[in-house]
């Protein structure tokens, strides 16, 4: 038999007290784990959703002129003296330090073409990247390939074209494979074709008008990515769409602050529960501690017994609290998000953190009762002697 056995046997004997202590810690750990995992899951969900909002970095040609458009209204000609962006420059984006954060890169070749005597803006795009950059597009029909196009809703109406129709522009016969449902944006007025087709029609081989980048910036500063891309594309002006980025960061920060605040309160309450329970336990065992001291236990032995008991219960509370917290999150998640595909998954860091936090909490809150127990005068404690 050793000190650990005494701690175990005492807990087994005083089941109600141990259960109360366990419950106090368990509620605390469960709440903290539930909050943290809920916020983390929500954060992933929000980040995922925000990322679906499309591009958050734009690369446009450098120019010394100021823009003459506002709110979609153009007040000047297209007399820009601007530098050109080359596809070869864009390819190097895959070599920047934060390349792993680049979810999609969409080069765009823009130019005006005449269809049925109407001038229309033609946009050449990489439709693979478009899936990430414009996830809100709903296309009636198929994505275009080769000499095929899809039309914005207003453009289709204005040109009187439908899926399957063929028309001629810049001397090429193009077939409509799809129409984009109205988006409420400028896209409604454009026609879209694969990048190579547009470059050929507009005489822009190897060059693009602009590029859109969707950066997954949950863990990276967007300003840093802007800087890295600027170095790679010197002829381009690289801009982070600050409103999107800041919105993401602020949302996350609010959630984190809330979690920290509530966790601190819960931890404080949990500590008080442990403190009060352990104080009661020590008082209840005054005579027993006196016996231990009388038969040769040092003060450090008494401290170790009390702390061992706290550590055993705390470790169990940490483990059960993690399981309870994850369960609570899974049960509560449907009330916080409408995403059907979002799931709570095992997080070893959170699990380990919950157990360590619980043990630290239990030990910290039990330190004073343990010292109090060790300071008990064995003679006073025994009274009989």
């Amino acid at each position: 038999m050793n000190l650990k056995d005494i701690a175990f046997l005492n807990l087994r004997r005083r089941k109600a007290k141990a259960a109360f202590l366990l419950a106090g810690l368990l509620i605390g750990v469960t709440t903290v784990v539930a909050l943290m995992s809920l916020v983390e899951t929500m954060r992933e969900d929000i980040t995922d959703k925000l990322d679906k909002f499309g591009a958050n970095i734009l690369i446009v040609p450098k120019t010394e002129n100021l823009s003459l458009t506002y709110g979609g209204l153009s007040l000047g000609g297209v007399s820009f003296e601007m530098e050109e962006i080359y596809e070869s420059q864009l390819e190097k984006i895959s070599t920047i330090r934060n390349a792993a954060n680049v979810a999609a890169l969409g080069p765009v070749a823009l130019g005006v073409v005449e269809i049925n005597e109407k001038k229309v803006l033609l946009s050449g795009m990489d439709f693979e990247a478009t899936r990430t950059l414009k996830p809100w597009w709903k296309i009636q029909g198929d994505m275009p390939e080769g000499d095929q196009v899809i039309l914005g809703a207003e453009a289709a109406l204005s040109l009187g074209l439908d899926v399957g129709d063929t028309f001629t522009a810049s001397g090429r016969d193009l077939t409509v494979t799809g129409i984009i449902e109205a988006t409420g944006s400028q896209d409604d007025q454009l026609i879209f074709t694969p990048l190579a087709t547009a470059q050929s029609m507009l005489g822009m081989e190897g060059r693009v008008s602009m590029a859109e980048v969707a950066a997954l910036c949950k863990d990276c500063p967007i300003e840093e990515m802007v800087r890295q891309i600027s170095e790679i594309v010197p002829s381009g002006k690289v801009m982070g769409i600050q409103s999107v980025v800041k919105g993401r960061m602020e949302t996350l920060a609010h959630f984190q602050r809330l979690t920290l605040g509530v966790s601190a309160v819960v931890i404080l309450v949990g500590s008080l529960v442990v403190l009060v329970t352990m104080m009661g336990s020590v008082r209840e065992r005054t005579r027993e501690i006196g016996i231990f001291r009388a038969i040769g236990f040092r003060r450090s032995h008494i401290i170790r017994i009390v702390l061992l008991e706290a550590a055993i219960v705390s470790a169990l509370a940490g483990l059960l609290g993690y399981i309870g917290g994850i369960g609570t999150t899974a049960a509560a998640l449907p009330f916080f998000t409408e995403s059907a595909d979002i799931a709570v998954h095992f997080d070893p860091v959170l699990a380990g953190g919950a157990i360590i936090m619980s043990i630290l909490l239990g030990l910290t809150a039990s330190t004073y009762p343990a010292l109090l127990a060790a300071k008990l005068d064995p003679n006073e404690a025994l009274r009989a002697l």
Partner: protein
Amino acid sequence: MSYIKAENLVKHYGTGDGLVEAVRGISFEIEEGEFVAVMGESGSGKSTLLSMMGALNTPTEGNFLVDDIEIYNLSRDQRADFRREFLGFVFQSFNLIPYLTLAENVMLPLVTIKARSKTKKAMAEEALDRVGLGDMVDRLPSQISGGEQERVAVARAIVNNPPILLADEPTGNLDSKTSGDLMGLLKNLNAEGMTIIMVTHSEESARTARRILKIEDGYLTDEERLIGEAASVRSGKNPVAVDKSA
């Protein structure tokens, strides 16, 4: 040089008007292997004296030496070690831990020593065997009688073979037959060489010892030496006590 030596032990509790002079200057010597009874009425100071001998209660004045060790010059931890190495305690109210089996209770003084669990268990079983409870090792204190509990307390006190056994009213809660059995047990332990100091107010129990120290109002007032059936009585051995009471 005596094995145990008390030099003018004084113990006061409280201060001012609330001052209680529990022990007022007691000196005595006990040889190795003696069986000494300390007798006195309730409140006479005998339990305070025993607690000072048990390294549990620091005297207000005076010295207490065991085997030439000045006990109250030791640190708290050293005193705990002293209690573990030198002393076995038998308490009046048994003081067994209710959630531990008899074997586990007896093993308690061995908990803090380095030994294999098997060895500790064997020592506990042997001690229980010596007090006649070898077949009850796995029982809880609540499952045995008061007399048996007192014997478990004795087993716990002797499990690590301490040279000194301190007993505080060991028969206080026992009937006369069980008391007789317990006294026989203590006598046997003394015959094996253990020094025993027993506080009691029972004349009958005290007669089991070889020497009786009588305490009254905090003073050592009388000493009686019992040799076999005969007894020699010396009164007023402690000059300090006699002087103060005069």
